[in-house]
Every structure is written in C-alpha cells, then in structure tokens.
C-alpha cells in the first residue's frame, strides 16, 4: 500500500475516532449533569462550579473544576489525543506521497486544519478548563473532515509552478496554526455569548479568558502569516500587496481581531461586545478559506476547490 492510499485510509479512521470521542465527551457532560441534578448536596454543587486557583492567567480564576468532569469525558479526551496523532500521521504521509508540504489545495488545507483545531483544543486544555466546549470543537473538526473527504477530496499530486516555493510551507503553515487557535477561541466566545444571555456568571468570564488567551497567541501568528504571504507575493507576482480578494479578507480578519484586542482593554467593551468581535474575525477567516476560493476570482484561485 502506498503512502497516499494509507493517508486516505487513516483520515477515514480519524473520522471514526473523532466521532467516538465526540460521543464520549457528550456522554461525559450528560453524566455530570445528571449527577449534579440528582445529588443536590451542597458540596457537589460547589465542586462542579467553584472558585479555583489557576496558576497562569489571572482572569480565569473562577472556573469549573476539572474533577467534576467524569471518567467518561476524560476517556473521550484520551481518544481525541489518539485521533490527533493519527490525523497528524495522515498529514505527514500525504506530504510524503506528494513530495512537498501537504497543504497545497483545499482538501489538504482541511485535513491539516482539523488537526490544528484539535491541537489548539488539546493545548488549551493544559492551561484552561475548557472540557465543556470540547464537543463543539470536535464537532467542528468532524464537519471539516467530513467535507474534506466528500466534497474537497483530490488525489495527491504535484503543484503548479507558482505554488512551488518554500514560502508555501511557511505562509500556509502559519495561517493554519492561527486558524486552529482562532477556531477554539470562536467556540469559546460563542459559548460565552450563549451563557451570558441567561445570567452573568463566572463561567462566562472563564470562557472569555480562554478566547482572549488563544487570540493573544493566534494574532501574532496570523500577522506573521500575512507578512510571509506579502513577501511571497513580492517574489511571485512583483508586488507585496495588491488587494487580491484573499489578501483583502486576510486584512479584514486581521482588523477584526485587532478590534477584539483593543476592545479587551476598553472599559465597557469587554464581555459580550468583545466576544462579537471574536466571532466577526472568525467569520472573516472562514469566508477567506471557503467563500473567496469558491466565489471570488483572484490570483489565489489556483488553490482549487
């Protein structure tokens, strides 16, 4: 079996594993909720949502306790980690099959993107208690992988000459890493907005801390991706910025996230408003990946559907 075939088979396996992890996480949440509702002892209530000292990050001090997250959910996380390793392996095999960085078309971008999202979630889990948004993150990764194998699939092949540059590895890799963190941040912001609709509570603050921390990491990476893209454009097309639709939407994404960061240090704009900016920035990012490739003609069209 050659590595291209193996990569394709692994992706199918990854889909199944992520789906199982999704079910386990959902079951874990359900078990936890049932426990909390049935045993209404005061100890349990404070254990599930209570003040907790988090060593890094001052605003996440009020957070739900990890111990409230049952064995079933933790099994889901372990399975997710296993799926991630397989996902990464399939990406590497794909790169070996094509003999280049494995992100030269939308299919490859999607399978690497799914890996980046899961990686951002697992990395975030080490710092923040974000188990509760886990199923949404895995759900997104599932949708992306599902689209990849059904709609976007294309066999491994060489690239057209203009893409054949080491800048492809740098520019696109940075964009994907930033994208993974933006995705988890957007899920956290959405969860925050949904919670705040009902009441103002510590968990919404904790979710805001998650999205803030992730965007703090992703924003410079995204900035680097845009600058690397400009340097590459200068070498390939003779100008570093030309308001090509892809460039324009990268700029719009950047400005929305810049607005998010500024809103975070503006009195009265933290919380709900800032969360909307996070979602706007993410919408622009996703549109740049999907909409621009499909609907807007431009120099990046060769990325292929």
């Amino acid at each position, binding site marked *: 079996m050659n590595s291209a075939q193996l990569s394709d088979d692994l992706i199918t396996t990854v889909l199944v594993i992520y789906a199982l992890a999704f079910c386990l996480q959902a079951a874990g949440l359900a078990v936890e909720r049932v426990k909390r509702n049935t045993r209404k002892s005061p100890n349990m209530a404070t254990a599930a949502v209570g003040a907790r000292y988090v060593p890094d990050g001052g605003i996440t001090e009020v957070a739900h306790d990890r111990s409230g997250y049952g064995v079933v959910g933790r099994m889901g996380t372990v399975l997710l980690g296993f799926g991630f390793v397989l996902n990464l392996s399939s990406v590497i095999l794909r790169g070996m099959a094509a003999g280049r960085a494995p992100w030269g078309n939308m299919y490859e971008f999607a399978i690497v993107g799914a890996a980046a999202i899961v990686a951002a979630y697992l990395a975030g889990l080490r710092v923040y208690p974000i188990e509760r948004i886990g199923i949404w993150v895995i759900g997104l990764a599932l949708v992306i992988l599902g689209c990849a194998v059904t709609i976007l699939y294309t066999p491994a092949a060489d690239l057209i000459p203009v893409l054949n540059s080491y800048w492809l590895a740098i520019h696109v890799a940075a964009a994907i890493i930033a994208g993974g963190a933006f995705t988890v941040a957007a899920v956290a912001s959405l969860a925050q907005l949904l919670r705040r609709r009902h009441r103002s509570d510590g968990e919404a603050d904790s979710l805001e801390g998650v999205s803030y921390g992730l965007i703090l990491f992703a924003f410079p990476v995204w900035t680097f991706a845009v600058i690397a893209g400009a340097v590459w454009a200068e070498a390939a097309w003779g100008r570093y910025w030309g308001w090509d639709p892809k460039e324009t939407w990268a700029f719009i994404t950047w400005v929305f996230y810049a607005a998010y960061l500024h809103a975070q240090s503006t009195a009265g704009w933290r919380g709900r408003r800032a969360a909307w900016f996070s979602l706007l920035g993410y919408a622009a990012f996703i549109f740049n990946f999907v909409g621009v490739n499909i609907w807007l003609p431009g*120099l990046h069209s060769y990325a292929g559907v």
Partner: protein
Amino acid sequence: MSKRSTSVRPSHGWGWARWVWRTLTSMRTAVVLLIFLALAAVPGSFLPQRNVASDPASVQRFYLEHPGIAPWLDRFSLFDVYAAPWFAAVYMLLLVSMMGCVLPRCARLWRECRAAPARPPTQLSRLERFREFPSDVPVDAVLSRAAEFLRRRRYRVVLTDTDVRAEKGYLREVGNLAFHLSLLVLLVGVAIGKLFGFEGRAALAEGETFTNVQSSYDAFTPSALTQVDGLTSFSMTLESLDAEFALGGPRMGEPRAFDARVTYTRDDGSAESTNIRPNQPLNIEGTKLFLSGHGYAPRVTVRDGDGEVAFSGPVIFLPMDGNFTSDGVIKAPNASPVQLGFQGLLLPTGPGRESDRSQFPDLFAPRLDLTAYTGDLGMDSGLPQSVFTLERAGLEKVGDQSLRVGETMKLPDGAGTITFDGVDRFANFQIAYDPGKEISLVAAIMLMVGLTASLLIRRRRVWVRCSQSSRGVIVEMAGHSLTRRGSPAADFDDLVRALTEPTSPEARS
C-alpha cells in the same frame, strides 16, 4: 490607546476642540474606526477593481453587464475602493487617533523609565498575589536577598530600609509603541511605492528583445511621480522558454514547470545569461521581471500576389482556455496588389477536423486554422489598431483552411500564399519597480517584533516589605500585573522560596 475620561473643563473657547480631540483619541473611537476599516475593505473584494487583480478588463465588463448601476457605483469610488477618499478618511482618522494616543504614552513611558519603581501601597494584602510569613533573618538581610534575587530576574529594583520595590516588563510598552509606530512607517513605504514606482507588462516571443523604455511595454501603469524617461536602461532577449505539463495522473494538463532562458544587457554593455522562473524573478537594479504567463506564437511566411515575402516571423496568439487554444491575427499590410489579413486559431495539440479545441496544453500536434481576407486592413487611417483584431470593414473573406506545420494555404485569384513554418513560445513578463518596498519590509519586521513583545511580555511589580514586631521579623510580599493577563506565578513563588528556605552558612556568618 489611552483610557481617559471625557470630562470637559470650563470652556476657554477651546472646550469643543479638547472634547473632539479626547473623543478621537479614545480607545472606544479606535475600536469603532477599526470596525469601519474592516467593513470599508469588504466591497472591494466583491466588485471589480481598477488597477487591482489579475483581470484589467473586469471593470469595463461590469459596465457592459450592469449599465444602470455601474455609473453610480463609480461615483462612490466603488471600483477604486482602496484609493477612495472615504477609505482614506477612515485610515487617516485611525492613524490620527492612534498617534494622539501613542505619543503621550511614549512620553509617559520615558518618564516612568527614568523614575524609580513605585512605592508599595499600604494594603499589600489586597493585591493579586500576597504572602506573609515570619522570618528569623534580620530585616536588611531579607531585603538584600530579595533585591538580589529580583535583580537576577532582571527587575528594576530599589532597596530602602523597610522595603524592596521592583518592576519589570517595560519592553511590553516599548513593543506596543513600536507596533503602532510601525504602521506609520508602513504607510510611508506604501506611499513611496505608489508615488514613484510603476508596473508594466511585456510579451516576448522566443528570440525577441525587450528594451526598457515605456514604448516597449504592452501595458504600463506609472505612478504620479514616476520618472518615465529615467527607467533603468537595459535590454533583455528571451532565448528560449521551456514548459512542462503533467502528462498523466489526476491533474493531467496542469503546468509543472516554466523556465525562461534570457540574456540581458545593462547600460554599461555587460551581458549576462540567466533563467527566470515562477518565484524566481530577475532583478536589475530594483526593476524586477517576473514570468507571469506564457503562450504560443505561430511562425508564418506570407507571400503576396507578386511572390514577394510580405511578412515573416512569429505572431503572438492569446490563449483562450486551459489547453491553450489560442487566437490571433496575421496582417500583411505591405502585400501587393492587395493587403492580406488572416484570422487564426492555433491548437497546440490539435485533433483532426472534428474539433476546434486543443486537447492538451503542450505542443504535440500543432494545427493552425486560418480564415483569409483580402482588401484594405484600414491601417493607413491613422487610428490606432489592436494587433489582436482585424478591422473587417474593408476586407473580403476569401477562404479558410486548416494547416499543419510545413503546409501552405493558397489564396484564390493568385492573391498570395501563407506557410505555417512552426510554433514558438512566448513569455509574458510582469515588470515592476517599487522603491518603497524595503521600507515596508522594515515596517513589517518592526510590526511583528513589537506586536509579539506587547502581547507576550507582562509588565508587573513586586514589593517586599519587612516590619519588626515583638515576635520577630514579619515579611510581607505582594505582586501584581499592570496588564490584562495576571502576573506569572513562577517569579513570585520562586522569590517566596528564596526567602523562606533555610539560610545558607555564608549568609549566617
């Protein structure tokens, strides 16, 4: 950007100006302007833009397709969004707002760097991190050990009789300022490029030579202050162009490699050979030549009714599809007794008669379909004429034929012949000169470094205060962060450990 109250003092006539300035430089205004900037950039990605994009004819096409709405969109600069006054207004306001906020912060940072770290507040226990413990070591020993520890951790430290004041992370603010100022530098770089640079295109068939003067360009877009007569003087000959296409597999027909072999001669007469490939431009003293496209130029010989050669050489045909079915015209104005014109279609891999579409982009079985015209080409009227179209008004169609290489088409009534000699390739070169791009690159690096520093570095303070009580020495320690993210626990915990661990023998002696 600064957080300020917008309270207005009793007016001295300038109250409104103060109010405007304060509002403009407030963080809230900056956020609103950022959102405006993002939204203002959106229409440019949906509507065709002038001087942007791969397709220069897109605006004209939009005018033809939407004649009602196009003039109105044009009135609001919507085909020129990124050069529109309203777009400029948004980013200029943003820059003014930013500078109004950043410059005072520069001054403040300067003062703070020269001043000693702040005195500890009375209630240390209210701060983010706090620890209190008794110590069996004398006050000055505790304080000097704390001071030494913090100095080693690169804090700025002031040691007094009763306390240690330390602060760290000034680079955060430096980075923040560098980031915002870099945007100004970037604007300067962009402006220099837009004022002095130019962009152009030139197509060369194999063997042809390009001389860097404005008239040699097929398209030339100078800027306001481009010195059109002062272009870097050089000439460049396209020796050969190699192209490779995927011969099989899932992406059959996709290009795989282009390689233009060129010889160029500089002003001083020195000649050099090199290759221009995608992602590998040729740079001649800041003027860069990029291989941006390619196509085919059939070589033909046209003989007129007298048997004289009226035209000979390659003619550039423009590709129409992915397999390089290309069309073009051949004109022989010097033919006598009548001028000759041909409308042609070149199929680099042409099937038999059954189809007039090329089957593959590479040159495997070239076929040239010609429609011949005789009469007046209309080239003497003085009006400029495209080399890619025939003015048919004065022409009469006299026949058509499909030729393979080496074949000749005879026109009726002895009007002449045309021979298909072979096919050359032509290369499209994008030629660009941007004197501002180095400045922009410096700005981008400054932006990247400044941004990273301002987001990762946390400015924080640590205080250690000792008091002598009846029970011995009481040490109070507090730390807090001046930024949104809390101060790192490691520094604080390490300091606690350093002060509580059993004193080493040297310190005791």
